[in-house]
């Protein structure tokens, strides 16, 4: 056994516990956080459905360590504290101690004391080292969803003010700020950007492709990850081109009161998750749209798909992802991609949020195979893919750059290197930012691109 592992193992037992050194909490850590944490935990258990869930989980963890080989973070560090089950145990132990009779009894018998600020610090550091990719669930014989346990821990922590600043500031702008989106883009700037993109599209395609704004009574109300307007303009142009080419040019719209699909609530707070979903539904209803169309964004797609039915009131609008839509159109014969334009090889990265449950795995592959001849799969792929390393909101936390490059994204970097293709297709704003940085950091030869960016080059207009 190497000295490095011995060292890390020793630190579990004896351990001067590290506090936050890799990301920043707004206003510093709260005082007396152990007590505050228990109060917040009690409030969360009182009003949500989580109590029977945690009850069940805390009674049935087998501690078999089969999840260790599934976690990309643990594979990179080898640190036992990165084992998914170990992380869940931190919060399940607190749950047992304060909210179950057996835990209370054991605490008395064993003479254990209360939890301390250090325990909260360890928990807080641990839960933000998880990319919430849910890969561990695939090999847990007990079916314990460690990503959900981590989510609950993050939610309780957020109620006592322990949230990475980057996530909190973005969500505050989205829910309480004047621009109502995470990147604080004012409507004027949005209109300018769209006008500029329309000119670009005219140059590239020779067609007058428009971005309809605030059009009422259309079928599709479009919510991309708002960062696309700043960083991934080509993806948006691809989206618009698909709508135009399939005869839906006047059948979709972007709402000016809310045009952001991003939902950081999915990562750290059910409260914000609910409010953001409600805003999306509200905007769709204002425009009398029939359907919520999500752009190339993994977590926006999943949060809308999973929670619009829960928080959207009666008869919530259906949610579809732009890749599902494109494939539907292809199968109806309305969308044709020219197979002779792109002669480079490509591989496809599955964003965890849409691929893990098997929802969007085959759709993009069918689209890609229809116009790219040299398609290479990474292994493993599909529902068992590796996370890009920036999931669970970590990609937004700049202080975690080193962690994402050297630990979270290490496996993905290997996979991309092994695939050795010209393009890496990643249809998720989150993954795009992370993989772009990974390719630069690890000096890989592939080029990162979105699916709709490629489709834009190959679309055949009638």
């Amino acid at each position, binding site marked *: 056994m190497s000295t490095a592992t011995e060292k890390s193992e020793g630190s579990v037992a004896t351990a001067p516990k590290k506090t936050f050194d890799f990301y920043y909490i707004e206003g510093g850590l709260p005082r007396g956080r152990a007590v505050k944490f228990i109060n917040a935990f009690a409030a*969360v258990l009182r*009003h949500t*459905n989580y109590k029977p869930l945690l009850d069940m989980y805390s009674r049935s963890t087998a501690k078999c360590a089969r999840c260790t080989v599934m976690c990309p973070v643990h594979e990179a560090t080898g640190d036992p504290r990165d084992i998914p089950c170990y992380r869940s145990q931190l919060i399940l132990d607190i749950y047992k101690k304060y909210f179950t009779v057996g835990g209370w009894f054991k605490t008395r018998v064993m003479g254990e004391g209360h939890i301390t600020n250090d325990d909260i610090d360890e928990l807080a550091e641990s839960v933000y080292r998880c990319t919430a990719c849910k890969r561990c669930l695939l090999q847990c014989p007990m079916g314990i969803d460690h990503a959900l346990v981590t989510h609950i821990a993050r939610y309780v922590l957020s109620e006592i003010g322990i949230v990475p600043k980057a996530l909190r500031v973005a969500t505050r702008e989205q829910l309480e700020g004047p621009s109502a989106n995470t990147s604080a883009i004012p409507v004027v700037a949005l209109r300018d950007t769209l006008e500029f993109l329309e000119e670009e599209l005219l140059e590239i395609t020779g067609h007058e492709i428009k971005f309809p704004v605030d059009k009422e009574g259309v079928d599709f109300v479009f919510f991309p990850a708002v960062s696309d307007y700043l960083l991934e303009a080509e993806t948006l142009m691809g989206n618009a081109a698909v709508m135009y080419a399939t005869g839906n040019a006047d059948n979709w719209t972007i709402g000016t009161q809310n045009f952001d699909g991003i939902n950081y609530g999915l990562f750290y707070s059910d409260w914000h998750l609910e409010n953001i979903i409600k805003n999306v539904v509200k905007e769709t209803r204002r425009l009398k749209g029939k359907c919520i169309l999500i752009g190339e964004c993994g977590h926006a797609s999943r949060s809308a798909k999973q929670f619009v039915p829960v928080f959207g009131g009666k008869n919530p609008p259906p949610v579809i992802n732009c890749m599902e839509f494109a494939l539907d159109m292809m199968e109806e014969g309305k969308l044709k991609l020219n197979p002779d334009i792109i002669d480079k090889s490509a591989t496809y990265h599955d964003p965890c949020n849409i691929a893990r449950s098997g929802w969007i795995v085959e759709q993009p592959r069918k689209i890609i195979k229809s116009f790219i001849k040299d398609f290479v799969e990474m292994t493993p792929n599909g529902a068992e893919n590796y996370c890009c390393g920036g999931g669970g909101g970590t990609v937004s936390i700049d202080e975690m750059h080193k962690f994402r490059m050297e630990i979270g994204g290490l496996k993905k970097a290997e996979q991309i290197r092994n695939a050795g293709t010209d393009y890496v297709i990643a249809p998720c704003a989150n993954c795009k930012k992370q993989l772009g940085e990974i390719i630069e950091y690890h000096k890989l030869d592939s080029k990162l691109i979105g699916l709709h960016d490629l489709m834009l080059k190959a679309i055949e207009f009638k």
Partner: protein
Amino acid sequence: MLTDWLGFARGPLFIMCFLFMLLGLLRLVVLELIGFKNAYAKIEDKDFLIFSPPEQTGDIRDKKFISKTWLAGIMEWLIPVRHIYKSKPFFSIVSIIFHIAIIVTPIFLMQHILLWKRGVGVGWPGLPGHLADVLTVVALASIIILFLYRLTDKDARVLSGTGDYLLLALIFVIFGTGLLAAHPAMSPVNYSLTMLIHVLAGNLSFVLLPLSKLAHVVLFPFNRVSSDFFWRLPPGMGDKVAHELHGEEAKV
């Protein structure tokens, strides 16, 4: 003297422990069902209530589809052949053998069945004695391997608590004394004493079933669907939590 104790242990004490187990496990199941029911009651649009990932293909409002995917998920892990090689294959195989041995042997052991027949008048076909012996030895061997795995595997050792080792040790005692009791001639210890330890350890395991991680015998099927189910939160609950903690003016 020893035989008196033995009579007590496998008479009234056994009945008490067995009933404790049945009621305890029943309580867990009922609590979980109530939890599911409350979660259901708090959801506004019940049309969308499902027992499987919402993203899965198929009509999510089709009850047949729901129960089918749910059952498929449970069956897949009840007989987890497909998953063995994905992670720690040796441990996984030993673990499966261990489970089969410790479930089959006590239920289908001839001597146990005779006791049931004498006590409640119900019997069922049992295993031939030799096969039962083999299964018992297999169980003992697999317990030793699992114990060593917990001690030697870097990850499993960190996760394991005292309870995980003690439970394995308890099951080892039950099967070890059971083997000796079935072959008194081989036993170095007095028959009655062996039997007493066997029965007491068995009774202890009944008591521990609903109290320890052994509860997975009944909670296992619920776990499979829980994460999709319990994350469907009652609308408005986020406001309630925030207002309770930070007052009506709670901010992001």
